[in-house]
């Protein structure tokens, strides 16, 4: 249907969700279902001297208590694997259930299965574990110090990997001859994803068939099936079906394969009955992979004209106690490669040390590496604006990759396919009323009282993950294509089977728009199926802002194949040559003979009847595509944040937030804006409130919503959004991806704004989150 692309049609997902009919994993109930509760280590590091489960087993209704001994006895691989390898990466084993040593608070030690949820919890509390507490290290810098407690014997000095990109020598030369240099020591605070739905799994094994169905909170059911069967349970892949029902948010945390889901699978196999486990908030906060947690020294060299000549970055990135699914890729290939930002930088060097700590593993969380890179580059650009006297706007403009320089090869591997950075900055300045704000700021500086600050963040991201050959050469143990099977039914309605797996993004709506636009039919005639390994043949899932760019492109390609086949069928029926057939508005037409045409439905019906049909064609009208992109996509934009800082109390008030983003062509503007809003809330949350805090013994002291400050509605303000449009040149839809942009850009914009407000106090940096206490201390020191 013409005009359906780029239109804010309402989401077809919503009627079920606003009436309480949507079924999330914990909503599911099956006959004979038992409940699991997992016994977790209260210590960050300890030796397990013994486990006495007799008191738990004695409770009526308790069905089993399993420990590492049962994993070994089951003869299964029993581990949680890492799916991205770097050169010389240390890969100590991560057992499904800890055997003799626990390495973070929350490490699974045993599992109890009982007839009832409450009983399982009671019994778990009766499992007596005899621990010998050992010294622990939770801080990423402390873990690198001599004599720090070792997380794994296999990783001396707690170093998981040592990685670099770019040229150290040319950067050294740039600094040696620089007119201006700025440098910064910063922490990128550890975050807990906090999807509001905690992780959950319902595993149903049937010994009569040897099959297991697992309903679980997953962003990528096929990836979970592969890792679950291959590395954890040792089951044949074809005997396991994984279904992601409604999934209540993910933000990365439901990409990864965790011990808990595998443990519940083992319970179901052992008991030969369905077993459900749903994490409490505290459990999900102790076991969902966390995000960020970097300590970085960085510096920028500029010439006398304010042009960047070199960038140097040295980062210690926490991995936590074990390597999570994609953890090694996050602070390396999704971080170091983004260091050129929107700028033409002739020399860059980025060195990253991956560090084991006695904490929950760290992995991809909304933005995954790119927010950290943007934070480094955009904090330095703010300082460079001050050091050169050019200010934050001009120093950026002067260094933007010019629009005629695309494709632009950076010094850190990525080749930007397209971009036009100036207009987004122009529009952001216009929206925010920059000149007026500067006058207001000047007058407040003269008069004292609450100060205002204006912060910029001009970000780039690489998303639409990604060309398989490229990620393979970088260590990924998986391809990064996406599949789409599009089936036109005899009555011309359509079902799409996509490997992208929605968990709030509205794929069913947007993917139906893609098909409707290309096929010239009503979106209501298109059904979208996802999130089930028995229905979809294979898929890589939803993360890395890839579903529209990769999953959507696979769908577009399948539709194109269907049109090509339809032309051959129509040509046969119309006694014309297939080359002369055109497809428009839902009809096949002979070019130049408008009266000779067949509707899609006529052709679809004939494709299934095959009574009067081309000899060389198979019946049916469906097509499968595996779309492997030629490059990443490169969304960009400029965000501006305006804050008011009370220098008496240190409190910060958000006054304005304007974002101009270029995500390429837009399928559904309402959904795109919604994705930006959500990302902004998470990035602003990181800047101002959110922090996963461990004490020196490795206890997570901000493990619940009582002490981890997820932004609430009264903390935030309305967001002002606009767009520029530079279509992606290498995918059929010209789309780039939008899921992570808000979270990538906003931390730097907020911190730059606060630092700008505090410039009269000589403050050039405060680490996130910018709590009133930290601000007050900075002002008063």
């Amino acid at each position, binding site marked *: 249907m013409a005009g359906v692309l780029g239109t804010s049609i309402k989401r077809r997902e919503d009627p079920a969700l*606003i009436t309480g*009919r*949507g079924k*999330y994993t914990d909503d599911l109930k099956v006959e004979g279902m038992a409940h699991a509760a997992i016994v977790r280590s209260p210590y960050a590091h300890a030796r397990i001297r013994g486990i006495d489960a007799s008191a738990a087993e004695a409770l009526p209704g308790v069905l089993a208590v399993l420990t590492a001994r049962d994993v070994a006895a089951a003869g299964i691989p029993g581990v949680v694997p890492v799916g991205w390898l770097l050169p010389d990466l240390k890969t100590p084993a991560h057992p499904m259930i800890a055997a003799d040593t626990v390495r973070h608070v929350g490490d699974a030690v045993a599992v109890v299965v009982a007839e009832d949820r409450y009983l399982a919890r009671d019994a778990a509390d009766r499992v007596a574990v005899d621990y010998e507490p050992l010294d622990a290290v939770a801080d990423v810098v402390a873990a690198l110090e001599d004599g720090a407690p070792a997380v794994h014997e296999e990783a001396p000095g707690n170093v998981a990997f040592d990685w670099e990109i770019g040229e150290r020598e040319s950067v050294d030369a740039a600094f040696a001859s620089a007119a201006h240099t700025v440098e910064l020591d910063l922490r990128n605070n550890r975050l807990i994803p906090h*999807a*509001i*739905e905690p992780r959950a799994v319902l595993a149903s094994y049937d010994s009569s068939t040897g099959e297991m169905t697992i309903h679980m909170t997953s962003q990528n059911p096929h990836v979970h099936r592969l890792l679950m069967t291959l590395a954890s349970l040792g089951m044949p892949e074809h005997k396991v079906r994984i279904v992601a029902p409604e999934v209540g948010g993910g933000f990365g945390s439901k990409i990864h394969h965790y011990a808990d889901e595998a443990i519940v699978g083992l319970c179901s196999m052992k008991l030969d009955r369905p077993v459900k486990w749903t994490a409490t908030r505290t459990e999900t906060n102790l076991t969902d992979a966390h995000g960020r947690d970097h300590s970085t020294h960085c510096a920028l060299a500029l010439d006398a004209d304010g042009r960047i000549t070199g960038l140097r970055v040295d980062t210690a990135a926490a991995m936590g106690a074990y390597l999570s699914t994609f953890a090694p890729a996050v602070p390396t290939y999704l971080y170091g490669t983004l260091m050129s930002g929107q700028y033409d930088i002739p020399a860059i060097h980025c060195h990253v040390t991956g560090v084991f700590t006695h904490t929950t593993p760290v992995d991809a969380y909304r933005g995954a590496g790119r927010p950290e890179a943007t934070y480094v580059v955009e904090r330095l650009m703010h300082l460079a604006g001050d050091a050169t006297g050019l200010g934050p706007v001009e120093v950026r403009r002067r260094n933007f990759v010019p629009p005629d320089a695309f494709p632009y090869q950076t010094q850190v591997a990525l080749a930007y396919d397209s971009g036009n950075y100036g207009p987004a900055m122009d529009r952001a300045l216009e929206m925010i009323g920059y000149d007026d704000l500067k006058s207001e700021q000047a007058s407040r500086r003269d008069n004292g009282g609450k100060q205002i600050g204006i912060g910029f963040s001009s970000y780039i991201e690489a998303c639409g993950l990604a060309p398989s050959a490229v990620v393979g050469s970088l260590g990924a143990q998986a391809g990064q294509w996406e599949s789409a099977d599009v089936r036109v039914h005899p009555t011309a309605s359509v079902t799409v089977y996509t490997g992208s797996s929605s968990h709030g993004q509205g794929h069913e709506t947007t993917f139906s728009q893609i098909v409707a636009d290309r096929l010239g039919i009503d979106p209501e005639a298109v059904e979208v199926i996802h999130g089930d390994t028995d229905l979809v043949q294979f898929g890589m899932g939803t993360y890395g802002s890839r579903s529209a760019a990769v999953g959507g492109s696979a769908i577009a390609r399948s539709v194109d194949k269907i049109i090509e086949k339809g032309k051959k069928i129509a040509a046969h029926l119309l006694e014309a040559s297939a080359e002369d057939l055109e497809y428009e508005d839902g009809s096949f037409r002979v070019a130049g003979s408008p009266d000779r045409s067949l509707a899609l439905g006529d052709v679809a019906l004939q494709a299934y009847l095959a009574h009067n049909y081309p000899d060389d064609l198979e019946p049916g009208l469906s097509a499968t595509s595996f779309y492997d992109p030629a490059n990443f996509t490169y969304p960009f934009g400029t965000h501006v944040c305006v804050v008011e800082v009370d220098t008496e109390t240190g409190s910060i008030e958000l006054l304005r937030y304007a974002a101009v983003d270029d995500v390429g062509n837009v399928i559904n503007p309402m959904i795109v804006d919604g994705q930006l809003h959500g990302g902004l809330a998470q990035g602003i949350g990181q800047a101002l409130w959110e922090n996963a805090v461990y004490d020196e013994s490795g206890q997570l002291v901000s493990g619940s*919503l009582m002490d981890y400050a997820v932004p609430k*509605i009264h903390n*935030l303000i309305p967001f002002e959004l606009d767009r520029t449009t530079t279509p992606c040149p290498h995918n059929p839809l010209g789309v780039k991806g939008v899921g992570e942009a808000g979270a990538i850009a906003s931390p730097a914009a907020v911190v730059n704004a606060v630092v700008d407000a505090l410039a009269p106090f000589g403050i050039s940096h405060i680490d996130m989150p910018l709590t009133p206490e930290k601000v007050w201390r900075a002002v008063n020191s």
Partner: protein
Amino acid sequence: MTVSIQLEVNGKPVQAAVEPRRLLVHFLREDLGLTGANIGCETSLCGACTVLLDGDAVKSCTMLAAQADGASVTTIEGLAQNGELHPLQEGFWEKHGLQCGYCTPGMILSANYLLAQNPSPNDEEIREGLKGNICRCTGYHNIVEAVKYAAERMS
């Protein structure tokens, strides 16, 4: 040991024998099959489990089923009347006030309470009224719009 309770849920009388420690949210979800109220935390902070109890918005994860004895409970399943969506449900759909939908039943019921107290709230009053409900997807921008939409429809 169980206690027997009698209450009204979405306009229908319910009688049950429950363990004294059974949470109202588990009673609704597991015993009555009303899975619209979700559980997102155990500290009464996320608000995903919010239901109406005699018209007040309460967090059903921090209340015992036994305490609901004699009360009238409305869950998200009971909000639409005669197949007609409630204006708040319409508003959340119209204004893209939800993404994953997990917080949505609680958010809508809290908004319902807010509008019962203040039929035409301004933005600030909406943000103040809904601060007991956490949404991780929307950044709240469109939730404010959704509630304004409903307030206009209901006035």
